[in-house]
């Protein structure tokens, strides 16, 4: 019951804010809606027992990436007002129709694939059981999501993890090179 | 010397860079100075000073006042160093009239001028440190400045605009016991100077903010017409007290502190040394005040013969010059011109700030030590 209330409230807010993000006239307002959207998504993660990801969502997305967006929006509109869009309706229909088609497709896939399936009760291939933190799930309040995630991240997904770090390094260098005025 | 004035049209800024107005209402422009800064990011590309906000026409006014009344107009120029303004003016008229000032008056004038230098430097130190963010120094420096003002109050009854001198001497003799108070103030001030230096001189942040900021070489400083501590900070041994001695300076011993690098830190160190030299001068002068009259032989009606002269003294800000023309007939000067040191030093601001960051602009406005009352007159 409580979960339903929270979910529906969040769902409505997330979707509403999403619409505001793409429809706001001022880019700064868009960014603001995006931040709130991300924070609410983080709440959704907490509901789904993913505390660590929720905190990372806030820390990296809301506290880092979106600040970057805001920074750029302000830099860009520093000298000139954000440009107006010549005629948004010109392709709006096409875009919306396309997006609707995508939605239909996704919904169809989702409904079709989850139609018969009960929630899989089987342990995942990399479930909590084979970690040394098996005792973690004991307390209701203190879950050991973070430890488990860390364990999985540094064992099974070590190579992707390293690749991701390389990606970040390359992106950092690339961003510096791009943004630097004189090389 | 191949100094050419930089040719830029300061009013026509490109739209590409950010142009900001610093002042006339800004906490660190020391009054109603307006600096139009052209910024590239945070770096200053060009600066243009707009002055005149408190132009009161003191020169014009003085040409319509009689010779004695002008003394109190000079108070209003550099209002944090009124006594040196008085001194410069009175000496110029004395030079024009060839009046011999009694030795006692000259000694007392020296004491007053040096006390004034301490008061003015206190104000400079406080505001300069405040601009860079060290706000405690401001309160400390103002506390000591109050002592100087107390001394002036006891001498002439006023604390800011003293009207402390007369053509030919002094209006009044020093009150009894005043000299001892001055000496004890000197002792106190020496200790307080160490306090200031503890807070600033070796402070890493202070060094970072002042070293290498606003560097200007000796030749360039001369060409730009800088005077006073900004000129000496660049290593130019120019001090009117030494070069063209007036009052009792030729009978007293003192050093002229010189900088080597010509940056903000050197100018700071020089002024700190000048505090000490002033204390030394005051000690000598107070000890040596001779007995005698305090007024020279001045005619009842002051009317200098027709002629003109330029006379400069070393005010706390730099070379304060008076160019006075008398037509020999009227009881007011025909032409009264002040060469204000702040005005000439402020001219160098553009050269100093170009290439530095916005944060350095306030440090540099502080380091040249301007008083807008004198710039605008």
């Amino acid at each position, binding site marked *: 019951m409580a979960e339903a209330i929270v979910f529906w409230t969040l769902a409505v807010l997330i979707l509403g804010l999403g619409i505001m993000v793409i429809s706001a006239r001022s880019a700064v307002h868009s960014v603001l809606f995006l931040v709130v959207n991300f924070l609410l998504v983080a709440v959704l993660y907490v509901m789904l027992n993913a505390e660590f990801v929720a905190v990372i969502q806030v820390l990296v997305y809301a506290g880092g990436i979106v600040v970057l967006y805001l920074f750029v929006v302000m830099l860009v509109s520093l000298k000139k007002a954000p440009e107006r869009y010549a005629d948004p309706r010109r392709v709006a229909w096409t875009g919306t129709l396309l997006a609707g088609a995508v939605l239909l497709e996704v919904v169809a896939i989702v409904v079709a694939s989850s139609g018969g399936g009960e929630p899989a009760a089987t342990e995942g291939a990399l479930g909590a059981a084979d970690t040394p933190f098996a005792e973690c799930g004991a307390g209701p309040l203190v879950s050991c999501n973070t430890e488990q995630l860390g364990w999985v991240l540094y064992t099974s997904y070590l190579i992707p993890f390293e690749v991701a770090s390389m990606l970040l390094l390359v992106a950092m260098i690339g961003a510096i090179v791009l943004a630097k005025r004189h090389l | 010397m191949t100094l050419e004035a930089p040719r830029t049209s300061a009013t026509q800024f490109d739209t590409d860079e950010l142009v900001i107005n610093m002042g006339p209402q800004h906490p660190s422009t020391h009054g109603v100075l307006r600096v139009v800064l052209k910024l590239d990011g945070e770096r200053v590309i060009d600066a243009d000073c707009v002055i005149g906000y408190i132009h009161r026409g003191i020169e014009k006014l003085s040409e319509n006042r009689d010779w004695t009344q002008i003394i109190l107009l000079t108070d209003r120029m550099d209002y944090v160093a009124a006594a040196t303004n008085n001194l410069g003016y009175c000496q110029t008229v004395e030079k024009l009239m060839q009046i011999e000032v009694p030795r006692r008056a000259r000694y007392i004038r020296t004491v007053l001028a040096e006390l004034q230098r301490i008061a003015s430097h206190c104000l400079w130190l406080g505001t300069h440190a405040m601009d860079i963010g060290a706000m405690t120094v401001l309160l400390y420096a103002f506390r000591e400045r109050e002592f100087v003002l107390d001394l002036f109050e006891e001498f002439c009854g006023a604390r800011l605009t003293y009207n402390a001198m007369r053509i030919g001497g002094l209006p009044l003799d020093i009150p009894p016991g005043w000299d001892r108070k001055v000496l004890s103030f000197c002792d106190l001030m020496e200790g307080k100077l160490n306090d200031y230096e503890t807070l600033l001189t070796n402070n890493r942040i202070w060094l970072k903010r002042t070293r290498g900021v606003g560097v200007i070489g000796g030749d360039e400083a001369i060409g730009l*017409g800088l005077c006073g501590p900004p000129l000496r900070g660049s290593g130019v041994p120019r001090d009117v007290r030494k070069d063209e001695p007036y009052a009792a300076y030729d009978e007293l011993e003192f050093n002229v502190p010189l900088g080597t690098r010509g940056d903000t830190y050197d100018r700071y160190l020089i002024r700190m040394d000048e505090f000490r030299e002033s204390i030394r001068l005051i000690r000598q002068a107070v000890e040596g005040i001779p007995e005698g009259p305090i007024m020279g032989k001045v005619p009842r009606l002051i009317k200098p013969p027709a002629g003109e002269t330029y006379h400069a003294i070393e005010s706390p800000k730099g070379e304060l010059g008076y160019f006075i023309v008398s037509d020999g007939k009227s009881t007011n000067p025909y*032409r009264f011109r002040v060469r204000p040191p702040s005005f000439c030093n402020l001219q160098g601001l553009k050269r100093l700030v170009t290439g530095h960051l916005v944060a350095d602009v306030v440090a540099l406005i502080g380091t040249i030590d301007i008083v807008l009352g004198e710039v605008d007159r």
Partner: protein
Amino acid sequence: MADETRSQAGKDGADRQPAAGVAGSAAPAAKREAGKKSAAPAKAPAAAAKPRPKPKPKAPPEPPKAPEDQAPPDGMEIPAMVAALQNGVSGAVLKVSFWVGDWTVIVAPDRLLDVMRFLRDDAATAFDYCSDVTAADWPPREKRFDVVYCLYSTRLRQRIRVKVRVGEEDPVESVTGLWPAADWLEREVFDQFGVNIVNHPNLRRILMPEQWQGHPQRKDYPLEGPGELLMENPQDWLRVRNLPDEAGPGPAADGEIE
């Protein structure tokens, strides 16, 4: 944008002037407006009502004469710097003067730059420091302005004054190229006197607002008056104030106001 704020500053400057001038509080702003439109006869009652401190026609007051620029007393040795100048730039020095210890050379305006360059560069003069540039106004004289340059040598510790006599329209070469210090000082001379300084890199008003009319330090400029009138047209203000004379602007207008 700079200009806009500048004009704002100008208005402030006008407000600062004591508005209660001669006509007193009785003269409303509307009348001043009328006076500004140079409707001179219409202004007669207002001006007549004003008690005049002194009757004017006390014979034209004798215009002040510039001091004679006393020559050095006989037998006085001409210092090396002046001698060098006389030899170095022959014919440019019109007169050498000595008064209360100061040496002054009066120079032909068209040779000013040569003289200044010599004074700066020659070893015997070496005037590397430009202390001051100023002027004095002697209205009835044909060449009404004395432009005065106070030079100092930081190496030889000597001073000299250079003076040129110019009329209102005569060009005076800027010495900013020799001493950057002269930049603002010359601007002030231009602002306050209206001396026609040429080849200055940035000749604008400096102390007065940009749109100010007239040059306050001239002797025929009124000492006081309503700021807004003074700013726009001081001559009109003079005319209003001296209605009975209607002699037009002139040096007579000054002097007795105090």
